[in-house]
């Protein structure tokens, strides 16, 4: 075999179009073309604008948790665009006259990449990014416990995403869905590199996520401001704590199962082949040992976001803090006890199914507690419907519907009828779009000023909300209906005329979602253009409650000039009620921040090279990449000169400057929150 392994000309994206021209291969060539041209366009832009250097020194080499968070979120948004576009193509396919314009293979590739991308390269980086930005600021830390490892996680995730993008240009992705169950994904039935793309891109990100989980957990355990007990933390920090635990323990079964699949495929093992004593059912079992906790990894951070946004825009403190925390903990633990509900139909005894069905319904209880917490927080509050608040209330509404259909599916007898139907597809989108995306959108709208110093445009924000909300109902309510009528999931086309009207509505809904996404892109564009008038340099543009709002916007690299004194659960609210507009400083001391370094980027690069080589069986290159990765980590481990100092004097100057700014910022009322008068620090009690 050559050094290039199994790679050959036919793997290059435009070749199949010339050898076998059709609309389906044309679309594939077009998608590959978009990736290539997109990459070229970005390079040209960077060169013309002279942005390579700032990109390298301000972003790629950064170890600052806020910037790392921003990069994660940008990654998630780029992948979201691809995911939504794929969804629209699938919807178009199903409304065009059977057999549609896509080959069956190509359609299968689309739902597989859509699912994989949405879960691993949209949802995960999105929530990891938001946690990175916000959590340290809420616990009074200056950085993550392991800033270098944090950057390594980031570049591993980007590497994984890059591989999925590469599958558009070189070779194919797999066709076995985001779950990639063998035996279909075994080497016999899926001989090409598709499944290996799935295995190795997930391999990179799942290692990245495990490391992120460790980082978050240790940061919360070790870096809280002095005096802050666990039960003084914000709900978002609690959500992060539970998410981190889930990340540490839940990614492992996936990594193991996918590596076992790799051994089956490439090294002649038989973990999941029926013929030689293997058992493919164990793959389903292991996959969902990961998969169910995973959905709580996706949802808990969003719950945390809503628990911050709703109190702020209701002008009230969160209702039932303690019950909310215990509900979060209960969900985290219970999430490890229900995985079998994803394969009720696999053949276990009814007895076993019944137990897991009941366990599943139990999770509805703490989740219900949370819903009441949010509603009672809003009860009799003075509600202000910012974009973030709209997404939060839209979430409560919609999520409850998804929860109800979830409890229905938890009943094994019902699940036997709805398993693998579009009813299920409707259910999990009904959980994930409000319970994940809306949460992350709310988070971006809410915390954006911390990173960039200006608010996002409210008008386009609200438009995007309504488009997403209406689009969601349009795209997924019809699927409940035809799911109950018997429509299976993952079908390239339907011949049943009764489904057709519903599929048309779903298509329109998907277009509406696409419009919502476009509105968000416009929102960012407009906000950047008008940033001068949207600046909130004094910080706290929404009369917020967490200590992150005691900082000026954008937050300086060292975050806190002095670590805040945690005199209560909400010291910033106390300070504002006492008429203060800055928190009293504690002690100014010299601090150390990690220096920027290109090493994490290089580690990610060689790790991606290794993974790519594994996909195409270029064993020599893979070995080199693997060794290089560890050599780089070793070199870094011997680097003793990795910190730089910020002196107490600089910190004091920073504090004084912020104080002067705050004192000269005119006081405005809450009613002017969304106007250009808002330069930060609006307050209810003032003039």
């Amino acid at each position: 075999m050559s050094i290039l392994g199994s790679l050959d000309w036919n793997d290059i994206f435009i070749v199949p179009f010339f050898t076998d021209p059709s609309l389906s291969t044309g679309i594939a060539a077009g998608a590959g073309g978009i990736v290539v041209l997109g990459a070229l366009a970005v390079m040209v832009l960077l060169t013309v604008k002279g942005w390579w250097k700032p990109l390298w020194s301000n972003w790629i080499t950064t170890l600052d948790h806020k910037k790392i968070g921003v990069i994660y979120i940008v990654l998630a948004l780029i992948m979201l665009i691809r995911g939504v576009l794929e969804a629209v193509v699938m919807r178009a396919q199903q409304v065009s006259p059977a057999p549609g314009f896509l080959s069956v293979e190509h359609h299968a590739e689309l739902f597989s990449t859509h699912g994989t991308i949405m879960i691993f390269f949209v949802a995960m980086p999105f929530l990891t990014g938001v946690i990175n930005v916000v959590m340290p600021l809420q616990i009074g830390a200056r950085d993550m416990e392991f800033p270098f490892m944090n950057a390594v996680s980031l570049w591993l995730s980007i590497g994984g995403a890059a591989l999925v993008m590469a599958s558009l240009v070189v070779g194919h992705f797999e066709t076995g869905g985001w779950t990639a169950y063998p035996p279909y994904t075994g080497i016999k039935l899926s001989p090409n590199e598709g499944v290996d793309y799935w295995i190795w891109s997930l391999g990179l990100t799942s290692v990245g996520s495990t490391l992120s989980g460790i980082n978050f957990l240790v940061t919360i355990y070790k870096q809280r401001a002095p005096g802050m007990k666990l039960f003084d933390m914000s709900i978002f920090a609690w959500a992060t704590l539970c998410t981190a635990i889930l990340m540490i323990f839940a990614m492992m079964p996936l990594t193991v199962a996918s590596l076992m699949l790799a051994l089956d495929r490439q090294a002649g093992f038989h973990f999941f082949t029926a013929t030689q004593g293997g058992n493919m059912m164990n793959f389903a079992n292991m996959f969902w040992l990961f998969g169910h906790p995973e959905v709580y990894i996706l949802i808990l951070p969003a719950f945390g976001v809503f628990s911050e946004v709703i109190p702020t825009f209701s002008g009230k403190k969160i209702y039932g803090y303690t019950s909310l925390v215990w509900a979060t903990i209960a969900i985290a633990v219970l999430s490890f006890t229900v995985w079998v509900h994803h394969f009720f139909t696999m053949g276990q005894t009814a007895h076993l199914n019944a137990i897991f069905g009941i366990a599943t319904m139990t999770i509805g209880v703490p989740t219900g507690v949370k819903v009441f917490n949010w509603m009672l927080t809003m009860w009799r509050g003075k509600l202000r419907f910012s974009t973030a608040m709209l997404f939060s209330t839209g979430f409560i509404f919609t999520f409850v519907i998804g929860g109800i259909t979830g409890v229905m599916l938890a009943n094994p007898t019902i699940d036997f009828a709805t398993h693998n139907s579009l009813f299920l597809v409707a259910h999990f989108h009904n959980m994930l779009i409000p319970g994940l995306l809306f949460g992350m959108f709310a988070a971006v709208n809410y915390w954006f000023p911390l990173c960039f110093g200006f608010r996002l445009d409210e008008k386009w924000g609200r438009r995007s909300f309504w488009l997403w909300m209406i689009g969601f109902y349009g795209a997924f309510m019809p699927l409940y209906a035809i799911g109950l009528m018997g429509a299976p999931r993952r079908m390239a086309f339907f011949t049943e005329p009764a489904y057709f009207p519903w599929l048309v509505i779903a298509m329109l809904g998907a277009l509406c979602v696409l419009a919502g996404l476009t509105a968000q892109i416009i929102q960012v564009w407009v906000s950047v253009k008008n940033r001068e008038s949207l600046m909130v340099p004094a910080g706290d543009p929404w009369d917020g409650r967490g200590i992150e709002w005691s900082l000026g916007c954008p937050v300086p690299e060292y975050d806190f000039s002095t670590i805040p004194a945690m005199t209560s659960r909400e010291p910033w609210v106390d300070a504002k009620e006492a008429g203060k507009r800055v928190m009293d400083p504690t002690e100014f001391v010299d601090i150390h921040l990690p220096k920027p370094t290109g090493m994490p980027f290089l580690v990610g690069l060689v790790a991606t090279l290794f993974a790519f080589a594994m996909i195409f069986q270029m064993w020599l290159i893979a070995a080199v990449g693997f060794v290089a990765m560890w050599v780089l980590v070793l070199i870094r481990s011997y680097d003793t000169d990795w910190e730089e100092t910020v002196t107490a004097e600089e910190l004091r100057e920073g504090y004084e400057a912020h104080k002067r700014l705050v004192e000269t910022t005119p006081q405005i009322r809450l009613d002017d929150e969304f106007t250009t008068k808002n330069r930060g620090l609006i307050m209810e009690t003032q003039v």
Partner: protein
Amino acid sequence: MDYINSDVGMDSAEYKHDMARYVWGFALSVVLTLAGVVIVAGGVFSTGLAWSIVGILGIAQLVIQFWAFMHLDFSKEARPDLYLVLFTFLLIILMAAGTVWVLADLASRMGMGAGSM
């Protein structure tokens, strides 16, 4: 440990205390491992009993190493770490026992003995 970077030095009480723990941990680990070897090699016990004893010895060694090398005990400072370790075990048991349960249940429905799983 703090004394590595601090000037407390190698003759502090803390150092001696930790060192004693390490030595105990090492010695007990060796003893328990050898005991396992002897039990199997000796062939006095029936297979089932030997398996169980070796299992118990293994668990004992795990506990000892947590105590000696990971500084885990019932003191107040070690409490959060203890909770995390116990929680970890809870999850591992859930996953491992759950997997065995599910696969054995499936095997029973396929008319296979538990051994052919």
